[in-house]
Every structure is written in structure tokens, then in C-alpha cells.
């Protein structure tokens, strides 16, 4: 199974999008791991560090930044109150894109979709609701498959970043309705936009949930 980052690289190559990766960013974190557990100092430290690096490596905000996990995008987009004054100013200049924005607005228009899938199903993560990108997610489905379902019972999977690892009962209970619904019919692919949510849904449904990057990579031509 190929990793998410490989799909991302492939998509950029096919779409002729210049891709920059820096060492500093590749060791950064959105801080959700600390904030969700209520560790304020650690969270504030982390987001300030990250915004500094993002500002520097994006050429003072001139290069759009793409995050490959929607819940991290949402956390980062909401970090402004915890930033120092300088970092707040820098933050305001950043263009932070979620993977869904990137795929829908940048990648798909530049790609040729040569082999759309038959019928796929999405698990919209909570942040999709909060960021208001459900429409874009649907448009990705529309472009990449003949039918893309969003289950009626789609809801929070209870992973909460990592909480589900320690309280598996929470995730099990949370995913039951949705996975029952999904398992009513076979799909040619199962996709979402946050790794931990994909794990939770895979555990629950018995199918491999993958990043939508994987879907886009597979259906697009070189």
C-alpha cells in the first residue's frame, strides 16, 4: 500500500504543480495533540513554532501551504488566538489550504480523469463540517467516480486524533451506525481525509479507508 505522501507527489507531478518540501515543516505539528488534552502551554509553544516555520518556508506567505489531514488544517486555521503578536501578523499572510481545497480547486482542474471509479464512499471528517467543505468533497466525488456516497449516518468516528487508541470502546460505539450503513453494499473504494479517522472507519467496517489523495492519484492520467 502506498503512502499518502507518495500520492500527493504523484498528483503534483501529473498536475504540473511545483511542490516544495522543507525539513522544518516536516518536523512540525498543528498542536492538536496537546490542545485536545488540555495542555495549553505545550499547545501554544507548538503552534507558535509551526507558524514561524510556515511563514519562513512559504516565503513570507507567498506559497500556498497544503496540509494533508483535514483535522490538522482546522486546528491550524483556528490557532490565531494562541499566537504571539508577530505570529498573528504572519498567520494573517499565510494561505493555508486543506487537502480538500487543494484537490478540488487546484489539482482536479489541472488533471485528466481517465479512469473514474464506479462507486465510492466517503467518510467526511468532523472538520469538513466545521470548515464548510462538504460541497467541495462532493465535487471531488463527482469528478472521480460515477457515484460517490456520503452515508446518512456519517458522523464523528470518536478517534479525536488519538483518544480512540486509548478508549477503543468510544470509537467502536461511534462508528457502528455508519459502518453498518456502509456495509449494506459493496464499494470500489473507501476514502476520507484524516488518517486517524480512516483507521477508525477501517477497523469498524473491515474495509481499507484511504486518503482521497489515493483516489485522485488512481483515477488521473499521467
Amino acid at each position, binding site marked *: 500500500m502506498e503512502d499518502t505522501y507518495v500520492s500527493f507527489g504523484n498528483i503534483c507531478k501529473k498536475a504540473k504543480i*511545483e511542490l516544495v518540501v522543507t525539513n522544518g515543516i*516536516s518536523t512540525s505539528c498543528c498542536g492538536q495533540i496537546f490542545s485536545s488534552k*488540555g*495542555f495549553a502551554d505545550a499547545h501554544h509553544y507548538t503552534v507558535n513554532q509551526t507558524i514561524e516555520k510556515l511563514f519562513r518556508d512559504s516565503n513570507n506567505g507567498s506559497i500556498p501551504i*497544503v496540509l494533508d489531514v483535514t483535522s490538522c488544517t482546522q486546528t491550524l486555521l483556528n490557532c490565531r488566538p494562541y499566537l504571539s503578536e508577530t505570529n498573528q501578523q504572519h498567520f494573517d499572510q499565510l494561505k493555508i489550504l486543506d487537502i480538500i481545497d487543494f484537490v478540488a480547486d487546484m489539482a482536479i482542474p489541472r488533471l485528466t480523469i481517465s479512469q473514474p471509479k464506479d462507486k465510492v464512499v466517503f467518510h467526511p471528517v468532523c472538520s469538513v463540517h466545521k470548515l464548510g467543505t462538504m460541497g467541495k468533497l462532493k465535487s471531488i466525488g463527482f469528478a472521480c467516480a460515477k457515484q460517490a456516497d456520503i452515508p446518512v449516518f456519517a458522523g464523528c468516528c470518536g478517534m479525536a486524533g488519538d483518544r480512540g487508541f486509548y478508549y477503543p470502546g468510544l470509537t467502536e460505539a461511534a462508528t457502528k451506525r455508519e459502518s453498518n450503513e456502509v456495509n449494506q453494499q459493496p464499494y470500489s473504494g473507501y476514502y476520507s481525509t484524516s488518517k486517524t479517522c480512516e483507521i477508525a472507519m477501517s477497523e469498524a467496517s473491515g474495509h481499507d479507508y484511504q486518503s482521497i489523495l489515493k483516489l485522485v492519484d488512481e483515477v488521473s492520467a499521467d
Partner: protein
Amino acid sequence: MLADELEKILPTERIKARLIDRYAYASDASHFYLIPKLVVQPINIDEVQRLFQFSHQREEKLTFRAAGTSFSGQGVTDGILADLSNYWRHVTPEQSGKTVRVQPGVIGAHVNQALKKYGRKMGPDPASINACMMGGILSNNSSGMCCGVVNNSYHTLKHLTFVLPNGQVYNTEKAEDYLRFESESNDIFEGFIKLNNAVRANEELTLRIRKKYLQKNTVGYCINSFLDFEHPLDILAHVIIGGEGTLAFIAEAVLNTIPDLPYKMTGMLYFESPETACNAIADLKTTGAEALEFMDRASLRSVEDMPGVPSFFKTLPVQASAILCEFQESTETALIEKYQNALPVFDKLPLIREPDFSQDSEKQALLWKIRKGMYPSVAGMRAKGTSALLEDFTFPVERLGDAVVDIQKLFEKHNYKNGIIFGHAKDGNLHFAVSQSFLTQADIDHYEKFNDDLFELVIDKYDGSLKGEHSTGRAVSAFVEKEWGPDAYQIMKRLKALIDPKNLLNPGIVITEDKLTHIHHLKMMPIVEEEVDRCIECGFCETHCPSRDFTMTPRRRIAVRRAMKRLEMTGDTATRDTLIKEYQYDGMETCAVDGMCATSCPVDINTGELIKRLRRENHSNLQNRIALFLAKNFPLVERTAKISLKMGFFSNRLFGKNFMHGVTWGLRKISGTIPRWSKHLDKPVSARQLASLSNGNEGSAKVLYFSACINRMLGGYLCIIWQYLQKSKN
């Protein structure tokens, strides 16, 4: 102990008898508060039968609850509470969606979702449909904007399966059950024949019943069933509708559905005063409008700052009122025709603005947002420590305007500021929202006087109904006789006594000896903290909560916070401390802080944020310092994590893919700290691998890739951070 006794008939995990369970279920959306002895979750008819038997043998009160969104206090009890919300969720469209089979725990909106592909929906349309469940919808005979008096549960019921307090189960679908009813429950069968004769022989009563149901009315039992049906089993099935869980347990219903008309034309009509607006209703009804929603000046003012609301709202005349009008049809041509026919009617009305109608779904959504945002807006802005009361009267449509003015006068007389009046004018149904404190006896006395004046107005002056939609509950049980008259009340009393002679099934609701039911067991709202103080305990959040079927829901998390404060105020710190202890796991640790609750909260509470704050307050300095240390050394942590991840993969290679999964699963059970290794984890990705992606594409676009840490090294780092933090706790 009651719980031990119950273990003979229910599995332990579905008997919730800890303090936290009892306090969590003491609240529903109403302004009443009773702490149940314990909570049980029966999952099938057999268990319900055993519960009835238990209740009878032990003389224990029993109350069923679906979503707990009732306003009138029919869903709270100090006896045994049977919660249906986690089970009983089947919904099956039948006959190409012409009918639908439902269980009591399915949410109303999910029934409509299931019917959507047939172009149908169910008749009842309470505004709470995204949260409330069929058990409640049927038992309250709920209705909303469009349903009127014809498409409610009573009129759309096709079949009902129910369990009587005597333990017998009947299904009106089965011919043999009609015979069985006569032989096995003969006392009830005979009693119903007598009641039926009594109703039909009483001409005055017959006329009264017919008159009452020309308008929306949910006070008392649906005794129109004595006029509408012949066989005692059919009569019984229809009084169970609207029976507020006092007559039987509803196990399943089959409802006739109605077409879901896809073409809509929506607009707002503005008038100089409430009287002119209400006087227009009769004419507007002739246009065939599906919805005619009245809003008074205070209602309009309550939403004038909402995004998208037109600026002229602020400059409307002091008494201006509006009517939201919607036409619905199955085809566009029919819709346009209906609308064209309405135009001459509009022309004759004393409107103060040009009518502005639209088929545009966004514009329509805004109008409905305005209408539906009124109660939340008043609720959200109410003073801390108060409840947001929502009254629900019905008046004769032709006197609606006078009624609005009379209510406004009572607001003034009793000094209720910011009271707003709105409602389903088409059916003479007016809601009004006020905020009310029950903290002191003076508050309660004040409320009682206001209430007495109101009820007198509705009943004596207008011969209206005290509850058009929300059902009798504790709020108006003591007034059923006054509203209906002694003959009707006697029928209702006899009916309850026939079916539940020991008065153990949700007692005190509909029929009561206590003339002060409406001011007993009032819910006191202590001032706790920001999120908690805003909450109206409506329960709209519950369906979205990932821990709903596991431990608690946002509403319950808040209800228990309030309970702790109440206990503190009364000096019962021992009970409070037990609650705090039990809250640790149920309330704090198993909240996913995902914040999805906020997406359906009418007053914008994110309980996840509350829990995060409580977690912050829970941490010691040492823990905070360790967390900060980890944050500062994140790259190091990441490296260590990756090594442990790789070791995990190595073991997996040696022992098979599920090896680590199993091992960590076991370890987690022992220590509770090691995250469950998941077989779905990917191998960690190094910074070098990521860097290799950089391409020199001279394309039209350029992006900086931020691969989130959970994609780079999932699992391992989480494990390490968690372990450090847990250890530092001890």
C-alpha cells in the same frame, strides 16, 4: 437494592444505577427536574413486558423516554426511567414509501431520509425533527409548520404494536389480535365499549370534541378516537397516540406518508400591527399556503443582527408584524399557478412592504433561518440562571390578533421583558418565549401568577388550548379539566384507570390529583460557567455525539455540571464528590472534543471546548511542564516514535500482521496507557522521503507541502506522549 432486583430481568450493562446516570437523566428539554431511581435500557418487547411486571410487583413507577426533547415535563420521573434512545432504531419504508414502519428510537429526520428516494415524507413535522424520536413524536402527537391538524401521527397512523401495563402485546395489523384483545384483556375491552357509548350518547361532549380538534390541541388524551373508530383496539391504538407514555409502550408503528413536495415559493409579508397581520390569516388560508408563520415585532427584533437579515428590520414600525408564507407543489407549473392565484389576495391585504417571493433555495433558507432562529436567539441571550420557557397556545384563528395583544399586555403587567410571540398562525397556534428564573420562592410565585393569568386568558376568554403541540406534561396536567370541561375529563380519567389501574406508568402526566403540578419539581438553573449557563438542555446535540452510545452526551455532560453545582449549593458535598469522581471517565475522558455538538446546538455551545477547559484545569504543574518539554523536543520525540513504530513493524513481519494489534490490545487492558496498535498503521515516513518529493515543475502553481505528523509517524509518537503524560499523573 432495586438494581440488584432488576438484574434478574435485564443484563447489568443496561441497568444504569450510578449517581451520575441518575443525575444525567434528571433533565430533559422541559423546565421540570426529577431524579430517576435508576435508568434501564430495554431492547425488545420481552424485556419491556418484564419491566411492566417488575413495576407492578414492586409498585415502582415507570416512565419511557425517547430523545428527551419534550417541553412539558412528560419525560422526567423519580421512578424508573426506561431510555429507548440507543436501540429501537429500525425504519423500513414499505409499499414504495407509501407507508413506513418505525421503531420508537429512530430520529424523525432519519425516517424522512429513508423516505426521500420515494419522494415522500411522514406527516408529523416538529421543528425538533432532527433530534426527537418516533416514540416521542407518536406519544406527543407532535406537529409543526405544515402538518396542521390533518397530517399528524393520529391521522396518519396505520398500525400500532404496543405493550399494555398488564403485559399484553397487541398489533393492529393482525386480525387475531382483535379477538385476543377481547378475550385476554376483557376488562379493558368492555370498559372501552362503555366509554365509547358514554361519549357518543353525550351530544354536547361530541360537539366539544369535534370543535377542539378543528385546531391544534395536544392537551389531554385524543378522545376523538371514540368518535373516529369503532373497534376498541383501534380506539385504544389511537389514544396511545398523544398518550404521553401513560397508557402503553409503543414498540412499532406503521404510518401513512405524504408527498414531499419539491417545488416551493417562499416570501415574507409585513403588516403594521399584529391585529392586521392576524386578520389576514383567513384570507391567506384560501390561497392554499402550506405554511403561514406569524412573527411579532419583538420576534423580528430578536433576529435583526443575524447575518443576512435585511437591514429594514431595524426600521419597521413599532408594532409591525410579519407572516412567512410558503407554497409547495409537486410541479413547477402548479406552483406558479398557485402563487399567481394568491397575488390578488395579497393585493387586498394592508401590507406595508411589497411582497417579495422567491423560489431561490438560498433566499428561502434565510427566511426559515429567521423564523427558526427566534427561540434560540431569545434562549441564547437570556440572563444566566434562567430557563427559556416556550409556551404553546392555540386560539381560534379569527381572534388570533386580539390574543397577541392580550399576551403582550400580560408581558407588561408581569414585567416580562423581551418576550417574543411567533407561531403557526394557519392553525391558530402561537408560541411565545420568555426567560424565567426558578432560583427563589419569589421567582416561582411570580411565575405562578403570570401563568394563572395566561391560562385564564386562553381558557376563559378564548376557549383555546394550553398546548397546541407540546402535550400536557406536568405543565398543564392540572388544567386539563378546566380546558376540556368535566365530562371529557371524566372520560380521560376512566380511560387511564382502565388501562393502568395502579397508576404506575408515567403517573401525574395528563391525569393528576396534584393541582400544583405545574409549579412542583421546577428545574433550578444554578450559575455554573459560560457554556453550561447558556444550555437549554434541548438535546439537539446528542445525535451527533460520538460517545452517545458509550458513556454520555453533551447535554448530559452539562446537566451533571449543573447537578454538581446544585449539590454544592445545598451543602451535599459527599454526593457531589461521587459525581465528580464518576464524571472523570464518563464526562471528561470519553469526550472526543470533536465539537460536532456545536453544529446542531441552537445556542452555539461547543461542549468539547468546555471539556478541554476542564482538562486544562485538571492538570498539575508538573504535567504541564512535561507536556511543554515534549513539545519543545518534538523532533526528538518524533524520532523515538518512529523507531518504536519500526520495531512494531518488525514484530509484525515476524509474527504476522495482527501480532502487534493483539499484543498492544492486551497491554492496554492491563495498563490502560498503551494505545491499541492498529493493523491499519502505515510505516513511518522520514523527512528525507518527504524531501524527495520536491519537484522542479515549472508549472502554473506552486505549493508548500505540510505532511501532518499523524501521517508521518502515526501511532508511535502518540503512544510515547501519552505514556509520559499518564505516568506524570501518578
